[in-house]
């Protein structure tokens, strides 16, 4: 309770509890039992009884407003009894009958709420008969009580829906932040994983050629320099999420690096492919991850990258003729599969070129407007 109060205070929302659709502000109507003292001086006993009754009412009311469960039922009935008992000496005590119905209407469980309201109605009829309340007053209490019950129940449900909505919004915001964080992490992994693999290969080559062929070694070092610059730009784009590069550009660059590493690369990407940013970005990730795995694990001599359309949709395939084993997915492929699933795509592994090696097949479903030609 303390934590909740503190939470409400620090968020500066305490004033919302005084809104007319919350129950607390209606405590101002507790002035009604004291109304006779505005224009007369009733008996001291009446004042004492009214003060004690008000204190007792406040305890029961606050209890019911906090609990809002089946325990509110006896509390509300006690308030109703208090009202009828005091009605004979103080007509303003009729307000307790209305507070009682509000206490019943704020019970969270619908079944207990209905039982509570039925109990209130029964107690009202019994109380009016027992105390000889005129039929007109009884009818007024009933009509007024029904309106208050309906409005209170509506307000309570509205509060609950508002609380759920706020929680969902906060949850969605937190998930969006987490998703963005993971996107950046994966983009960095995809970019840097491939890039560092290429840099390592070229550095190793440059080291071996340093004495035997310094010109070639110098060329490899220049290529490392360029790869570093390109990777820096890609990292910046990944962090800001600003630009999605065309698939042909990404695939061309990756093909160049694979060729530099001594692989034979064939590219079959239609020049007039009409890809959305999302499709291009997703396929770009597949090419990067596939190429990284080829460089690190496959021991392949040939790689084929192609984009075509079939019944399933738009299919990007990256196949090699190496050792195979892509079907035993590592963390890179798992992460890639998850990211593609978020974009509505699927990732499959299969045998590679000439029945050897591995192939990655990423499918962008049909009907999205993206085409290979």
């Amino acid at each position, binding site marked *: 309770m303390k934590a909740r109060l503190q939470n409400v205070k620090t968020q500066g929302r305490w004033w919302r509890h005084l809104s007319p659709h919350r129950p607390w502000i209606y405590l101002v109507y507790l002035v009604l039992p004291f109304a006779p003292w505005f*224009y007369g001086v009733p008996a001291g006993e009446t004042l004492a009884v009214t003060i004690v009754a008000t204190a007792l009412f406040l305890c029961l009311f606050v209890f019911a407003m906090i609990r809002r469960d089946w325990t509110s039922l006896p509390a509300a009935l006690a308030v109703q009894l208090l009202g009828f008992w005091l009605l004979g000496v103080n007509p303003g005590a009729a307000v307790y009958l209305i507070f009682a119905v509000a206490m019943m209407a704020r019970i969270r469980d619908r079944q207990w709420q209905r039982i509570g309201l039925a109990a209130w109605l029964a107690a009202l009829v019994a109380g009016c008969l027992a105390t000889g309340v005129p039929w007109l007053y009884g009818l007024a209490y009933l009509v*007024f009580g029904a309106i208050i019950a309906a409005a209170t129940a509506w*307000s309570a449900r509205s509060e609950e829906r508002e609380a759920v909505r706020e929680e969902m919004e906060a949850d969605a915001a937190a998930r969006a932040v987490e998703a963005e964080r993971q996107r950046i992490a994966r983009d960095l992994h995809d970019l840097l994983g491939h890039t560092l693999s290429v840099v390592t290969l070229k550095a190793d080559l440059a080291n071996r050629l340093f004495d035997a062929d310094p010109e070639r070694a110098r060329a490899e070092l220049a290529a490392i320099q360029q790869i570093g610059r390109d990777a820096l730009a890609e990292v910046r784009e990944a962090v800001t999420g600003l630009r999605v590069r065309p698939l042909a550009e990404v695939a061309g660059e990756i093909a160049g690096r694979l060729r530099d590493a001594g692989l034979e690369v064939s590219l079959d990407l239609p020049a007039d492919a009409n890809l959305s940013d999302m499709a291009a970005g997703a396929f770009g990730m597949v090419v990067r991850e596939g190429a990284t795995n080829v460089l690190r694990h496959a021991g392949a001599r040939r790689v084929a990258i192609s984009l075509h359309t079939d019944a399933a949709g738009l299919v990007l395939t990256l196949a090699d003729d190496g050792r195979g084993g892509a079907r035993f997915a590592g963390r890179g492929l798992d992460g890639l599969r998850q990211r593609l699933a978020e974009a509505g795509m699927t990732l499959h592994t299969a045998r590679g070129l000439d029945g050897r090696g591995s192939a990655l097949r990423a499918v962008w479903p049909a009907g999205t407007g993206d085409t290979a030609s």
Partner: protein
Amino acid sequence: MTDDFKTQLQNVKDQYYLDAGGGISLPVAGAIYWIALAALSRYLPPADWALTAAALSGMIFPLGLLLQKPLASPFMKSKSPIAGVGLLSVMSINMLWPVHFIVLGISPDAAPLSLAIGMTLHWPVIGWTYGSRVCLIHAIARVAAVSVLWYAFPEGRFDVLPLTVAALYLLAAGGMRWELGRLRRKKGLQATAMTEQPA
């Protein structure tokens, strides 16, 4: 105050008015309250009527909540930054209760006048938040009408006066509905003009 700020403020008010559907379920609830009081005057002596009027006033807002959907005026849904001004004005009129009770006690005959005027004081403020002229006109008309009736027609203080207030409430609700229609048409025309602007 710059023109930009004035325009911005007017747009906020217009949006609040549209989102809240004019909040017309509250004047309709008010009309029902005053009609009920007029009916009860046939059965209750002035002192009892006064106390009943005070007690039943707590019914107006809850009734307004229930009438939101049938009257398409979801005034509680709007999250406008100026909604709080209306809430404060409602709280302000409730600060008059100690004065009302003195009137009710000393001169129950004055109860209809005291309540009819006391419970109209928030209307100009609510009208400002909506950018509505009808609300201000209602407040002025009501004060004038009940004052004239109370002095000129003493035997009608407990039935004719409440019925007059109820009628003014219903007229105000109709007037606000008309204002909303005009505002919707104006916003619709503005939206059309914006989409048809040459490139």
